Every structure is written in structure tokens, then in C-alpha cells.
């Protein structure tokens, strides 16, 4: 899924280092760290937990929600792990760093918060069984990956939600081995896109009961970006017919690299190779002083898919230590539906 995370992680403490090598250092080499290999056989529940020998990893949940007031909302809950060294140790000197991002997007506002911690002392981490991912009081936990409670708080917003998986895990690329560039950079990448979500959003002036659909991305790697790749556009789209599409474009100096996974309503996946999907910005907005495409045309000619993807709230900017755009979108055209869009490197 999101390449974005790559960036964030390494660059966690080092903006300038990030600028030196690709976005957030994600183009750096992987000395000492493990590298994803094709043909890897996932083991659960272990693989829901952290992989300290890989440089970066995340638990990334987004959800499109509808409030009791009938209005659309989006939430994000992300825990990033970034390793300075390929190991975990006890105490303050742990080389594992954790970063949490949480956001609520309403039709007219975008609220977000950020948390930082290190491993080794228990302030943040992930356990596979029972499952818990946490940083400070933020958490995503449950008896297993299928039944989760989710909570996060910022200065003026928060949410408490429950997630119930309605379908199987899906694996992107070659059975979870997701290639990210023509040079072969790759990550392990699987998702749970079938969460039914309900609970309460805490907004500054009121609490709102919401229901909707959630999508969890799990990804880890050590060097997901090629040196010339500067950012990406990532889409997770849920169509009203029950089908879903994960599609991303990595923008490179030489050429763009795209990949996509078509997910049927029962969880069957079809991996689509580089070049299958086209992405064209239709409209831009000025967000945080930058020009960001907030309406897109996405086509998958082989499948007769030709949709317009529009940001619910163009100002869904995450002004965190590493800034990016992340927010809910609505889909119209050959298919309709809802989804999430993430854009980095603008």
C-alpha cells in the first residue's frame, strides 16, 4: 500500500537526511536489514506482529464512515515502525522507533495528531496474539485480527470504533510480494479491506455515531523505493458493487511505476502489472502552500473501469513531521463508491 510510510519512517528524526536520498530516505540501501523475497509464506498470527529485522513497517487503517447525521466522514489510524538497526533491545536504547498518526476528516475539516515513541520500554509496539498495536493510549486491539477496537485522541478530536472483518485477508502482488519499481524494490504487503466499522467520532463540538467500512494495510520492507522515485499516489477504492481496487503510482524521474490489485467481493484478487492502470489529475487544489491534485481520473481499460476520484475534503493535509495528503474520496463514472487517497512527495 502506501509507500508513504516508507518515507516517514527513516526520516523520522532526520528531515535533511530524508531530502538527501529519495523521499524520507526510503531510497537508501538496506545494510544489515532483511530484504523481502518472492515466495515468502506468511505465518499468522505471527506476521501480524512486528518484524524488527526489516527497516520499516506499518499497520495502516483507513475507514469511510457515515454519521448519524447522514454526512460522510473518514478516519485514519496508523502505526509506523522504523528501525535504526535490525534488532530490538530492552530499554531506552532500543533502535526501534514508532510513530502514530491519527486523523478524522469531515466534509469541512481535517483533524490530525501525531505520537512518537521508541521501542524497548513498552510505550509503543505491536503484539500478534492477542493482537494489539499501540502508542501511548492509542490502540488497535482485539482477540484476533478479525475483531478489533480502535481508539485515538488528538487535542480536539478522537474516536472509539470497533472493527469486524467481513472477509478474508488479501495479498497484493505475487502472493504478498509487492514490487515497487522496475529495478525490483519490493515489500511484503497484505490487507484486510473488509472491515465493518461502527462507533463514535469525538469532534470538538459534538460526538457523532458512525458506521462504515474500514481497510487495514500491513506492509514491511527495508528499501521499497528506487533511488529516483520521489513520491507516490495511492488509492484504495471500494465500489458499490462490492469490488475493490488498490492502485498506486510511484513517480520516478525516469518513468512512473504502477501496480494494482483488483479484489472481488469475496476476496479473490487479481494483480495488475505496471502500466495497467492510468492516473490523470483533473483538478488541483492549493493545500498547505502546495499544488495537490484533488480530482483524478483513474482508468483500467482492460476492465472497462473509468472513474473520477474526488477528494471529500481537499484540505486533508497531514502537517506532521513528514507531511502528506491523506483523505477520503468519492468515486463516480463507470463505477461509484468510496475510498481513500494518499499522496506524497508534492
Amino acid at each position, binding site marked *: 500500500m502506501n509507500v508513504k510510510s516508507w518515507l516517514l519512517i527513516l526520516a523520522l528524526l*532526520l528531515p535533511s537526511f530524508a531530502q538527501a536520498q529519495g523521499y524520507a530516505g526510503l531510497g537508501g540501501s538496506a545494510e544489515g536489514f532483511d530484504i523481502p523475497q518472492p515466495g515468502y509464506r506468511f505465518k499468522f498470527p505471527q506476521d501480524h506482529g512486528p518484524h524488527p529485522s526489516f527497516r520499516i513497517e506499518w499497520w495502516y487503517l483507513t475507514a469511510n464512515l457515515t454519521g448519524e447525521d447522514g454526512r460522510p466522514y473518514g478516519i485514519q489510524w496508523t502505526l509506523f515502525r522504523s528501525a535504526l538497526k535490525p534488532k530490538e533491545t530492552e530499554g*531506552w536504547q532500543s533502535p526501534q522507533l514508532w510513530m502514530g498518526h491519527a486523523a478524522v476528516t469531515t466534509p469541512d475539516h481535517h483533524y490530525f495528531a501525531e505520537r512518537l515513541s521508541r521501542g524497548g520500554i513498552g510505550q509503543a509496539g505491536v503484539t500478534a496474539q492477542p493482537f494489539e498495536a499501540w502508542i*501511548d493510549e492509542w490502540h488497535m486491539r482485539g482477540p484476533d485480527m478479525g475483531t478489533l477496537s480502535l481508539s485515538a485522541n488528538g487535542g480536539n478530536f478522537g474516536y472509539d470504533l470497533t472493527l469486524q472483518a467481513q472477509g478474508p485477508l488479501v495479498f497484493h502482488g505475487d502472493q504478498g510480494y509487492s514490487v515497487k519499481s522496475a529495478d525490483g524494490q519490493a515489500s511484503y504487503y497484505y490487507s484486510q479491506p473488509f472491515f465493518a466499522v461502527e462507533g463514535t467520532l469525538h469532534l470538538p463540538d459534538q460526538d457523532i455515531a458512525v458506521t462504515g467500512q474500514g481497510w487495514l494495510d500491513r506492509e514491511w520492507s527495508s528499501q521499497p523505493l528506487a533511488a529516483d522515485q520521489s513520491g507516490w499516489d495511492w488509492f484504495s477504492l471500494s465500489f458499490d458493487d462490492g469490488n475493490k481496487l488498490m492502485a498506486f503510482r510511484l513517480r520516478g524521474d525516469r518513468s512512473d511505476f504502477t501496480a494494482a490489485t483488483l479484489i472481488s467481493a469475496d476476496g479473490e484478487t487479481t494483480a495488475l502489472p505496471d502500466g495497467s492502470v492510468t492516473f490523470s489529475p483533473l483538478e488541483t487544489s492549493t493545500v498547505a502552500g502546495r499544488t495537490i491534485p484533488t480530482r483524478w481520473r483513474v482508468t483500467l481499460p482492460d476492465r472497462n473501469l473509468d472513474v473520477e476520484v474526488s477528494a471529500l475534503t481537499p484540505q486533508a493535509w497531514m502537517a506532521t513531521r513528514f507531511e502528506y495528503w491523506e483523505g477520503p474520496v468519492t468515486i463516480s463514472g463507470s463505477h461509484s463508491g468510496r475510498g481513500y487517497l494518499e499522496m506524497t512527495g508534492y
Partner: protein
Amino acid sequence: MTVAIIQVLLSHWRRHRLQLATLLIGIALATGLWSAVQAINAEARASYQRANEQLALGQHDELRNPAGPITIDRYLSLRRAGWQVAAVLEETTRIGGRSIRVMGVDMVAYPALPAVTGIEQSATPPDPADMLTAPGRLLASPDLARFLSNQTGLPPVLTSPDLPPDLILTDIGVAEVLLDRKGQISRLIILPDQPRTLPEIAAITPELERVEASSQLDTAQLTDSFHLNLSAFGLLSFAVGLFIVHGTVGLAFAQRRGMIRTLRALGVSMRQLVWVILLELSLLALFGGLAGLMLGYFLAGALLPDVAATLRGLYGAPVSGEIALQPKWAVAGLAMALGGTLLASGHALIRLSHMPLLSGAGVQAWRTAAFNGFTTPLLGLLIMLVGIIVQLSIGGLVAGFTLVAGMLLGAAMLLPSLLSLVISIFQRFTKGPIAQWIWSDMRAQLPGLSLALMALLLALAANIGVGTMVSSFRLTFTGWLDQRLTSELYLTAKDDQQGREISNWLAPQVDAILPIRSVELAHPSGPLFLYGVVDDQTYRQHWPLIASGADVWDRVNAGEAVLINEQLARRQDLWPGDDLMINREYTLPVAGVYSDYGNPTGQAIVSMTRLDQIAPGVEARRFGIRTRAESATELADALRDRFDLPGQAVIQQAAMKAQSMAVFEKTFVVTSALNVLTLGVAGFAILTSLLTLWTQRLPQIAPVWALGLTRARLAQFELLRSVLLAAITAIIALPLGLALAWTLLAIINVEAFGWRLPMYLFPADWARLFLLTLLAALVAAALPAMRLLRLPPAELLRVFANER
């Protein structure tokens, strides 16, 4: 026309270059010393501010555990409840013999600390992997970084120019290793951004105490009195410098009277003249002021390292030893030069503007008119009186300085009358013609030398006063150290566990083990350090009490009462019989007050049992050990070996005292330096007065020479006269200086530091100062005397000739 007037006026300075130089030097000295002090103050304050900003000191509320360190578990409890707190582990440790504060912050959870942000955003940011994982990196100011790079066994050091001196900033993970405080947290900073809802801290970690940002130790506040002291000295130097300016300008005006009469006769209005002269003075002030600024800059640079050491030693205030040219004090210095010059010249200018067109009064008349009659001495008495009234009626530090200023200024104004009186007494009892002439001539010279002698009086009184204060303080402090540091050994264990092991091991072989346990409490009066004591003869016999009720130690040991230090007593006006509220739950009567010169903060002592009730679990790592003095060294070595303690963990009494005295001595280096400089300026004032008097000397000397005295003898008399005047001034300065010392000890010190010191007298110091004064007077008169010695007879003869 104005140009023509200016030309005429300026021609005076061309003919009197020495006078011009004297005037400029006077302005420069006054401005220089003042600016130096201001520069030092500005630099120190900037340092505090930088440190506070860099380390976010005093900006956020904090959580502390009165009983000792906070564990990581408790930190986690708060974090998992949502509280955004940042862990800090800090301790002052000795590295390579230097006392250094190590501050370990959680650089991951608190990246917003300015010092950390600064490093991240530098041109070559360190790799976070290096910063956060073993061995880690130490951040230090350039000076400390140089020092640390020569030490072995430390993590690599990175330079961070904005950090305070003698402070190592590092990640908490590195600090806990460096300080051997694994898993310990000194305090938690409550960060400004907190989530929407939070449980009460008391419900999570009831043992932690919240310390408001406003009640944390504020360096700037703490050191205010020190800076006020420095400013007072700067002002004194400034005043002494202005005496030179006043004298020189007055003489120049008197000498130009003829010229001014001529100009007025030619139709120049007095108003025009006054404006032109004001312009002239302003220009002179500007040039002298600029020179003074340069002087001040270098002087400050030379003095600052010592001031910095003082402030660190006395208050733990972070001040770097390097001075930067700040426009603020530079502009202020120029303004002072201008204002001072105009102030010092105002009198002369007013008299000039009232001069009748045809007045025949010359230089001699100007001199005698300056200090005749009763006006000046009466004014002097009045000023003294005002100082006393202000002190009595208002009180406080500023009033204390008003008293000092009134005393000094008043005495200075009385000086000419006093000198004249003394001389006439001598004159009356003198027989020989030459002696008679010398006295009468001295008296005739007095008006011209008065200002310089006033300057000398001020400098001497300041010297005696401050010297007496410092020496009294030193004597008291030494005695106090002897009382206070009675244990033969002082020991710091790694933790409570080791502390217990050590006490158990020691118990059978030493006379007594005195635990030193303390806790810092937030108190309305500022931080309050509460100590616990065990019942021991050591305290009963030696503890330096300055006020006590009945059965002091019995009551304290029974847990019924508390002892407080003098600072707290004076600040809160608490004396035996009053009650001290220690915290919400505990209020105890004060049984006694003890002197405490080690720190500016409040302290209280209760019995060990009480301490454990008030603040359960206070760490017990430090001990005083009473044993036979001969075996102390042996025992210290044995302790180090057996318990694997670092060298600094066991300190012998003598070393402890030496360290304390070293800090003490550093404290007054600047004071002494300013003292010597002030005396130097006064010496210079005498020299310039004698030089400006030079032209008036010939008519006095020539007739005597003609009557059969050699130039050599006359030169000797010149020296003698200067020395005699200085000697009389010095004798008058003695009581003034002692009065000043008393004021400093009994009023200023109490206000500034919170302690009152007994006054001791140091005649040997006075004798030394007296000789120094005579020497200064001799040196000042040497140049004129030399000139006289080498004067061609033709010069003297010219006096009698027609052309005069």
C-alpha cells in the same frame, strides 16, 4: 560665524593636548568600566535566556517524585493513560575533575526541545541511529566539547554552540549509562499539547508531585541581586570617571574665560556660545564614549570567564565565558558617556553662562570658588541623611544601595572641608619656613585636587568596604565549613541497595554513619530542600545555629520541630517559635535557624523519621562517615575497592572543604578586579589633576626657587605633597570604608543573598591598601615632579619677566 566660534574654541584643545587627552580618557574610563559591567550582565542574562529556551527550563509544569527517581513503569502508566510527558534524567557529575551537569532527555518523545530541533536542523545532522543507540552521542558547547574530547571512556562528543557551558545534553538512554542510573527518571516534563480527555494524574501516579513552571528555580531572578551588585560597582567606577571629566572640563572653561570674554566683546551671544560648547562637549563625549566602549568590550571579555565561574559556582547559573558585542549595551554606554559628560560639565557651563561680560576672575578664582563656603559640605551631609532615611523608611536592596550611594557621595562632598581642616591644624603646629610653605601651598592646591581626591576617597572606601566584606565572609565561611563539614568522609552510593550494604559493612568499624537524605519540595517561598538527620552528637555539638529555642535538638529529633536555614528564615520572617508549613499535611514549629552559605535556596531539617513520613522513600545513597581522622584515607580506599565506587563517590573532608573554598574564592574575583580598577582610575584622576595644575604651579614655585631652593628639593616637595594628601584622604577613607562594609554585611547581603555576616577587622589589609595608596600618589606625582626637575631655569625666570 558659528564656524568661526568653533574654530576659536577648538584652538584651546590644540594648545592643551594633554588636557584634551585627559578629558577623553576620563570619559573613556567612565564609559568603559560601566559598559564592561553592563556587557557582562547582558551576556549573563542572554545566557540564562538561551539556556532556558534551549532546554525549555521553567516553561512547562513538571512532575517529580519527592521520594527519589521516577521509574519507567510510572512513566509508562502516564503515557498509556494519554498524558504527554517527556522523561528527563539529570545529575551533576564530575568528569575529569570538572563539575558537569548531564541532562538526558527522551529525544524521541520530546523532539520539540529547541536544543534537539536545532541539532536536527543543522547543516550536518547526526544520524539518529548514532544519537539513540549505544554508545550514543554527547552534545556540548564548543568549549566543553574540547574538554570532553580529551577524556576517555565517554561517547563521541558533538558540538552544539547554543548549549550552556558545563552541560551535556544527550538522549536519556545514553545519560542513564553515563550516570549509572539505569531505568531512572529525574522528572517528567508535562508537554504543552495534551489529548482531548485525560484522567487525573493523581489517579495514575499519586506519588508524583506537580511543580508549576512558575515555581521552578528561575536563574534570572536568583541572580538579580548579583547583577545589581555588579551594576552598583559599575556605577561607582562611572562616578569616579566623571570626577576626572568634571575637573578637566572645569579647568578648560576657566582657561577659556579670556577667550570667551573676547568673543562676547566681539558680539557673540552667550546663547550661541552655550550651544556651541554643548556641541563640542557632545562630540568629545562621543569620541571618549566610543573609546570607552572598546575598552569596556575588552575588559568584559577579560572579566567574564570569572563572572561566569562565579555564577555557576554560586547559583549554578549557566553563563558562557565569551562576550558578544550587543547593540543594547553599546548604545546604552554611549548614552551614559553623553549624559555623564553633560552632567559633569553642567556646573561649569552654568557658571560660564552667568559670567558677567567684564568679569576679571581667572583660574585661581574659579578654583577657590568651587569648594568654598558651607554649601558643598552641607549638601554632602544632606545627601548622607537622605540615604539613611531611604534605608530606614523603605528598606530592600535598592534602598540599601541608596544608602551606600548617599554615604559615599556625601562623604566625597565633605572631603575638601575635612582636608582643609586637617591641613590648617598641621599648619598651625608647624615651625620651619619650608614646612609652613608646604602646608600652605598644599591648602592652596586643594581646590584643584579636590575632585581627584574625592575619587580616591571613593575608591579607597570601596576597597576597604568590599575587602572587609569579602574577608569577613571568608572567615565566617571557613568557620562555617568547619562546623558544617564534620564528617571525615562523604560517600555517595550507586543506589539505596548499595547504600544499605555499605552502612552495614561500615557500622562496626566507624564512630557514626550520618545519612544525608534530602528531597526538593515545591514551596510557596520557592524550592525547599528538606533534609533528614539522625540523632548524633556531631549535630548537637557542631551545627552552626544562629538562633535557637529551648531543647533544639531534642525537639527536632523527636520529630516535633524543624530547623530552617537563614535564607528561609529571613525571606519568610520565620524564627524560633514560628510555624513552617512544609506541605499541605505537615506544619512544624521552627526550633532553630542555622547559617547556610552554600546555596541561595531555602532549606529545612527534620528528623529522619519525619522525613520518611513527609516524603516516603527518599533515596538514601549519601552518607557522612565519622571515623578517626588518621584512618580516613585508608577507609576511603577500602570503600572504593570493596564496593567498586568511582573516585568521586568517596570524598574526604579536606577535599570537600577545598572544593567549597575554591568556589568561594572564584566568587569574589570580579569584585576584587573592579576594586583594583577603580583605584587605578582614582590614581589616574590624581595624575591628571596634577598635570592640569601644572601651569598654575610655576608662579607658586618660581619665587621659592629664586629664594634659594633647588629644583631637586622642590620636586621632592611635589612628591611629598601628593603623598601627604593621599595619606590624609586614606585615613578619612578608613571609617567610611568600614561603614560601607557594615552596610554591605548587614543590609546588602541580607537583601541579596539572605544571610547576615559578622564583621571582622583586617588592619593588615588596611596597611597594605594604605601603602598602595601612597605608592599610587607617588606615581601620580612622579611625572610632574620629573618635569620640575628637568625644567630649564629660563622657564622659571619667565614667571618674573614682563611677558606674562
